[in-house]
């Protein structure tokens, strides 16, 4: 069952988008001679509180607290232990994988398109790119107050950008 090996299932290649986004912000700020640091900082905050909470349960730390995860043999499926059969967990697992691929594709394409459009029309792209990225990786508990992860947030950003572009969201 796939859910037994969850630590193995990490997809590569995401760093290329982080690379592209950092480049676009600096490049855009250079072209417009504007400050970049607040926008770079916004997407470089990391997740201190999340790190704190995750490290409490980090598997290397658990033995010092009397919990020995590696003494537990590899997960064996016993139907009487579970309310639902494991194949349902596998289905959910693959559905989440598929949903993530679709969702992040939309996220990256929206950011990419905004950058290209701003470059073409000589507009400043940095605030849009930075906020679009920030809402995806917002640290805990900010991500609970701004629950705009997934492609929903990008729809907000895209609509906001288009409204601004056509003069609806500008200060008089």
């Amino acid at each position, binding site marked *: 069952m796939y859910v*037994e090996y969850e630590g193995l299932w990490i997809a*590569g290649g995401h760093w290329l988008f982080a*690379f592209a986004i950092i480049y*676009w912000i600096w490049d855009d700020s250079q072209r417009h001679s504007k400050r970049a640091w607040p926008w770079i900082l916004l997407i470089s905050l990391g997740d201190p509180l999340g790190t704190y909470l995750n490290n409490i349960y980090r598997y290397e730390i658990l033995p010092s607290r009397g919990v020995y995860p590696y003494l537990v043999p590899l997960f064996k499926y016993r139907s009487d232990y579970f309310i639902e059969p494991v194949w349902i967990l596998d289905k959910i697992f693959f559905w989440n994988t598929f949903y993530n691929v679709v969702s992040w*594709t939309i996220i*990256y394409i929206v950011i990419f398109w905004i950058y290209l459009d701003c470059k073409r029309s000589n507009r400043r792209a940095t605030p849009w790119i930075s906020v679009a990225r920030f809402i995806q990786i917002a640290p805990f508990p900010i991500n609970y107050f701004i629950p705009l992860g997934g492609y929903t947030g990008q729809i907000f950003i895209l609509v906001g950008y288009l409204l601004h572009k056509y003069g609806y969201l500008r200060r008089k």
Partner: protein
Amino acid sequence: MSLGVIETGLIIYGIITVYWTLLGTYMLVKTNVIGVKAAPLIILYSLSEWLVGRIMYIFFPEIPPHPILILSGILNAPQVILTTIYVYVNTGIIKIRWTRYLLLFSFYVGVNRLLTFIYRFSPLPEVLVLPVILSGWAGYPAWFYVYVKSNRVFTYKNASIIIALQILAWIVPVFMMYNLNQKYSLISLTQQILNYPITIITLIFLDRYRLRKVVEVSSSVR
């Protein structure tokens, strides 16, 4: 031939990795971040980094995963260069001599990995805290070359303030670990927060340097 769970999962995640790599490289080429000739290299690097990571995970899942820690730093080094120094150089913010920079940076990666190897049998949280702190000093030649020597982003005085802040950010976790007997979760939180002032100051100075240069160029054009 029927495939097992691991083989099937790896094929699916391999396909996803190829997809992200191709999409990311397309965006990088399309926006002139990298040239067409560099694209195959980036694709090859990104795929091999993922593959090596997965192979390491399968063969060395022990606690803590030292071979992974040692190799991951070496594999991540090109990413660190691309997402910082390459961006600064290519967008015209700073100028460097690549050979000199790469030699200094390789020295840092070498010391960093050597310390991880030396400390591989240390208890937790030492193995997670000490190699990072002790190898930190080895990063300074490259840092100093880029920001102080090759480009006047920092004056010597400002550079020394940042170095002092960094030393403070190293001392506090050690003090928390040995004198206060704090848990690693709290140490890791403190480490992240203590790095904020250094990041902010570096970014502000980089911005000031960059914008000052723009003003100088535009006034010389007039």
